[in-house]
């Protein structure tokens, strides 16, 4: 096949000379189907093993509808919500303090993270609940005064303990998020006359959310499970309810499996929420958004060109 010769102006009139007989095909993946088969086999085997195990699935079914476990789940969700809100508020505050140029501010923030991330949350819960060991009374002088044990109810202690502990972890996540925002954004905000604070919450934080949301999702799901520690101070969340039941009837695995099913349900709802939250904050970002399941369905239904 000899080269083409000298200058030529190609005609630009449609249609182009499409050589349809040379359509490409993307690579075949026979391994995929083998893989799918293997995975399916393993799954069937596992399901069969579980079904045949010394686990009484009738009991599982029975407790799945039990009102007291659902109430416990309600308490779990409530506590998760309160603790996460507190944790995020504190986390943002501490992260901003950590990044301050003022050595005292950043020192205080550093100390907070060190102490609360460094000690077991179980101890922190007990500390809050038993604050009366240290401060028997709480009072705002002249206005209000009460016995600490009356103020520090199980729920208050659990929410404070979990939330303040979470704040330490969240602050690290938020700090990484803030650092991920291009310095130029801050300068642009300053240049149109924004102060530090407004720059933070109008420009930096909304962009940091892209990096912040996924780990916070992780942490929320973690919190859902961590709330079970609150049973130490007498909050009757789902796991404690289950324990009360299995201390009596000894159906340990069955009741734990029921809890697992409820947790899985809650985690699934949270994951969906996270997915849409991530999409929301990805608005305007350079990486294209993954399609929502709905969009995927629609795409699968419609006709599309051949490409991969």
């Amino acid at each position, binding site marked *: 096949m000899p080269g083409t010769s000298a200058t030529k102006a190609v005609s630009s009139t449609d249609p182009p000379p499409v050589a349809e007989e040379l359509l490409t095909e993307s690579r075949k993946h026979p391994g995929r189907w083998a893989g799918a088969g293997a995975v399916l086999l393993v799954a069937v085997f596992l399901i069969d093993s579980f079904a045949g195990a010394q686990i009484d699935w009738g009991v599982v079914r029975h407790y799945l509808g039990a009102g*007291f476990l659902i109430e416990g789940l309600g308490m779990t969700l409530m506590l998760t919500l309160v603790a996460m809100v507190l944790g995020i508020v504190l986390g943002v505050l501490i992260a901003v303090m950590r990044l301050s140029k003022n050595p005292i501010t950043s020192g205080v923030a550093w100390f907070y993270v060190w102490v609360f991330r460094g000690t077991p949350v179980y101890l922190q819960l007990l500390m809050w609940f038993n604050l009366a*060991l240290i401060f*028997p009374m709480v009072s705002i002088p002249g206005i209000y005064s009460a*016995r600490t044990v009356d103020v520090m109810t199980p729920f208050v202690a659990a929410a404070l303990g979990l939330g303040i502990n979470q704040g330490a972890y969240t602050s690290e996540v938020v700090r990484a998020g803030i650092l991920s925002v291009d310095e130029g954004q801050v300068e642009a905000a300053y240049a149109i006359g924004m102060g530090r604070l407004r720059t933070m919450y109008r420009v930096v934080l909304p962009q940091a959310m892209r990096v912040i949301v996924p780990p916070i999702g992780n942490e929320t799901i973690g919190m859902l499970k961590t709330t079970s520690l609150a049973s130490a*101070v007498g909050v009757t969340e789902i796991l404690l309810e289950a*324990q009360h039941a299995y201390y009596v009837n000894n159906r340990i695995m069955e009741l734990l499996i029921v809890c697992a099913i409820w947790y899985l349900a809650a985690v699934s709802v949270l994951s969906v929420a996270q997915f849409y939250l991530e999409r929301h904050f990805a608005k305007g970002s350079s990486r294209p958004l993954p399609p929502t399941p709905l969009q995927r369905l629609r795409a699968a239904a419609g006709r599309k060109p051949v490409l991969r």
Partner: protein
Amino acid sequence: GTGGAASGSSSKNGLPAAVAQSGTLRVGMSPDFPPMEYVDEKTKNVVGVDVELVNALAKQLGVKVQIIQQSFDQLLNSVQTGRVDLVMSGLSDTAERQKTVDFVDYFGSQGRFYTLQSKAAKYTQPSAACGRTLAVSKKTDYYQQAVDFDKKYCSGAGKAAIKMLPTDSGSAARLQLEQGRAELAIQGAENLTYFEKQDPGKYEPVLSPLKSTPFGIVTKKGDSKMSGAVLKAMNALVKNGTYKRILTKNGMKYAIITPALNGRKG
């Protein structure tokens, strides 16, 4: 709300003023210990032998009972901080624990070795336990007793040591027995009675009972008014037969003792 914590003026039953005034006795319990205290699945109330006893006690004192559920780890702190007036949750009186709280002993608990009925025949004398795996809840006094038992009959006597398998509850210990990870377990005699009701013929106590340890009602260290009133009322229950009736009814005759303040010595 509370008035002054001044425990000066005493009332007819000898209770501290704050309790007498409120007319309610707040009792801390960790309902993870059937049949002494556990949550009834239907009513969601805490029930059990301790509950029956404390109700009788309160009646004697002329006050109502409010049961406050807490985890085991939290119970003693709650006495300390005044969140509850006393704790009655199958807690063993030990000399070590007397350093921080006071006990009014009311129940002579016995630890028992037990195993699956099918294997019970093997255990005829203490040395039969040597070299076996023993599941025992770490939250109970039995853990220490098992260690002492091992010292006395096994590792201390030149035999194979008992392999300890600590668990976080009596029921978890039982699960290990069922799976065959453990060959023996220890549980209070009161629990074994309860298991027998649940799964008749499945388990069997073996060997002789461990040393009897009293359960005590926990009051704040040095609050002699409270412990005195409780001891007085317990003695009254013994005298009028209520105490014996409750324990006998539950098949725990073995546990009857004479109530005493900090009765365990050494």
